[in-house]
């Protein structure tokens, strides 16, 4: 009798294991906690001016899907000095999330790099520093050279510590790209 009971409970446990389904596949939720950079905004402010020139890359649905909706050409005056600030946004969410703040909070793991080709088109000097005295690049000074056309590469390097040891050393080397965009650049 006792054994019969044991068997029954075993069978019951077995059935439960076989037939439980807690969550249904069709209950699919939009992923709100997924972090994405969809938008890069470059703001060039001429000394003495208060209205910045604004150039944007925007791909609100992230990689793939619809093609990027905005990829502005940067047009600047020759031989001029600008204050350059950069903003990173996640516009896949409403309201849009400002990733710039988070880059700032983790400044010791991030580095923004501006590279002009040809190099004579634009030179960049960092205007900010992280806790370890390495540049960040969220704000700085961009000085244009003689008139010409080319590219401005904007990179956000994510320089996560390796085995808990910080790797950021002020150079582009460590880490990997979170942003890597070649804006068209025209200096007149």
């Amino acid at each position, binding site marked *: 009798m006792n054994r019969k009971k044991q068997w029954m409970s075993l069978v019951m446990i077995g059935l439960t294991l076989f037939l439980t389904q807690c969550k249904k596949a069709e209950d*699919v939720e939009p*992923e709100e906690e997924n972090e994405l950079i969809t938008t890069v905004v470059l703001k060039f402010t001429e000394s003495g001016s208060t209205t910045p020139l604004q150039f944007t890359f925007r791909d609100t649905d992230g990689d*793939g899907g619809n093609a990027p909706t905005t990829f502005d050409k940067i047009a600047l005056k020759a031989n001029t000095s600008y204050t350059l600030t950069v903003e990173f946004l996640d516009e896949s969410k409403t309201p849009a999330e400002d*990733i710039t703040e988070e880059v700032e909070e983790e400044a010791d793991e991030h580095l923004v790099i501006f590279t002009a080709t040809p190099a004579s088109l634009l030179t960049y000097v960092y205007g900010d520093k992280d806790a370890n005295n390495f540049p960040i690049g969220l704000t700085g000074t961009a000085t244009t050279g003689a008139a010409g056309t080319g590219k401005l590469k904007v990179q956000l390097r994510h320089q996560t510590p390796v085995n808990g040891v910080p790797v950021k050393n002020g150079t582009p080397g460590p880490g990997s790209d979170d942003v890597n965009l070649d804006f068209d650049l025209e200096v007149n």
Partner: protein
Amino acid sequence: MHKAYICNIVAKYRNSFILFKQGILILLGLLNLLPGLAQSVEKDCHCFVKGVVKDEHTGLPVVGATVLLIGKNTGTFTDAEGRYQFAGLCPGVYDVECRIVGYQSSRHRIDLTEGHEEDFSLAETEIHLNDIDITTQRTDAPSTQPLSILSGSALAQTRGQSLGESLKSITGLTTLQTGASIAKPVIHGMHSNRILIMNNGIRQEGQQWGSEHAPEIDPFIATRLAVVKGAAGVRYGSDAIGGVILVEPKELPIDKPISGEVNTVYFSNGRQGVASATLQGGIKGLEGFGWRAQATGKRGGNIRTPNYFLDNTGISEQNFSLAAGYRKGGFGIEAFYSHFTTQIGIFSGAHIGSVTDLLAVLENGEPLIKSDFSYSINRPFQDVEHDLLKVETHYHFPDGNRIQWVVARQLNQRAEYDLHRPRNDSLAALNRPELNFKLNTLTNDLIWDHKPLARKFAGQLGLSTLYQYNLMSGRPLIPNFDQWNIGLFAIERLVQNGWELEAGFRYDYRFLSTYRIVSREKVTNIFRFHNASGTIGAGRNLSDAWSVRFNMGSAWRAPNVSELFSDGVHHGAAAFEEGNENLQPEKALNSVLSAQYEHSRLRVEVGAYYNYIRDYIYLKPQPEPILTIRGAFPYFKYTQTNATFAGLDVNAELNLTKELAWTSKFSYLRVTDVRNDSYLVMIPANRWDNALKYQWKEAGQWSNLYASVTNRWVAEQRRVPPASDFAPPPAAYSLWAVQAGGKWEVSPKNQLELTITVDNLFDTVYRDYLNRFRYFSDEIGRMISLRAQWSFGG
């Protein structure tokens, strides 16, 4: 007291001590049956072999099995009690082969050599007929298709390695790797969803589509790894296009004394330790019971290439399995549960954000991230769990029919952690995986083996169902889905006049319903796939030495969710991959011709295959790259073509002297994209293995004492589509390995098997085309492995 002329029967496959006694006993039986014969001294042909063929699983006699005496080219069938008998045999060496549909054919060597006169004094109770009983293991593998088996010492020499690595010694098998710690088996150039793994009779269901998703199986649960090469869709259902891997534990030790095995392995590279133990037995006082418990632990650190360590390549694994069964009469029931957990570090130097990052590593020639040895596993890493619960029950009807029902539930949980945590502190604090998959599978198999008809036809009918659902969270990669499958099959086999003919048919239907979010809206897609597969084969033993088999089989697979819905950058490959909802199932038609020659000193096995795959799904490069926020990525779309996989596997073994043997394994594969008159990417290069093994015949308490040297040569893969890759396929390489080992019989019930191996003896720097991390680093350097296996009891 008898004076006897002995046909001393020694079968190679068992403990010689027992067999000697057995031989004598058989002889004594013979004496009882044929009085007077024993006194004859001349070399006459009056030896005989008889026995019972039993199912290893149920212990019941197998009726209607063909038992062939290879040396004599004669055969017989087992009767209603499973008995067979060969009489009138001359002394000599014979191979007895036993075959029946649904069972793996088994061959036993019997040595009926001329004996000498001896006096025997045996107690009355010992004088009973002890036959050559054959226990045969059920297998679903088609008998006319090449089946490669890894068991015993060959398996022991791979202990501690992953399933993929363990199978590499089989001709025609390679691995698809992601770094040194993730290896997926490749059969004849096919992997992932194109091969099927049967884990203890259950089709393994994980996220197989991912090239970095290794099978979630602990090879220590198996005492036999078998590989069916080529399409085997009829018996196994969808996905068995390239072949099937059978991971098979030993039968439960019903009513047997407690026995066990302890394995310990140390790998110098990665300073990895592996330990596994098995304990099993029957239960005293409870007739018909058997049980087994097994557990494995594994821990390793950073792997070293000849010149540098690979950061974050540690591994940690904990597995266990429990099994229990009961048999009475024709009835049997068995339950099996296994749990697999692994944490695998992914080489951090392989993380790239953009093509620029990849080109920088390629230009550098070695990883940009340097490391020392460490056991710690950091981001990026995978955390994978797999649970399998299986219940099998069967009943043998007294008339020879048999019915079997297997139900199994699997839960595969895979969490993948990216290198970067979320920047948002509160999210980062949760430390959640960026990719999280939960795949739940319920399978049912109902199989009816009909009793042999006219002692010639044997066959089985089967019904298989599968229900599966997938839950995905984190970064959207594949959709959630529900999937139902039903398959019906029938296989018949005829054994007559030295021929073995086989034919089978199957029909499968699959219903797939996917759920995903597109632009904040839920989108449901419904897919219905169905397919008919067939198999036909013939085998014949042409002479004592020659046997030939031919099989033509088909298989299919429905496009998987990643092929249907991929839409994003594959970071390991720096490629943008886009799925295609209109993909049709792939269909394969595979022909295999295999021949075996076995003569005193030489054994050669040749298998030639031609696998034509219609609507082969692959990633086709698009002319324009795709622009993302991390720059432009090469753009690939899932497309279909027709492809052929043609190749040759050659296995040769030559005994140069009694002690020295040479083994050679060669595999050639040529894959063509027929529609585009081109090649396909990621096809393993041709390879040739050669080994010299010296085995000591007598070495005191040691048996199987040997030393060997092996060379593996792998060609450069020259057949690649033009401009398909960031780097050309790596150069050819040649690796040397040495090994020594032996079995020490401490006592009849205690055996210790020790092996030492040095792989990549000369610390050769090389890269392999089928390692997805070949852009980033060299392959693993020299490695010394120490293995100890202690078996006791039984």
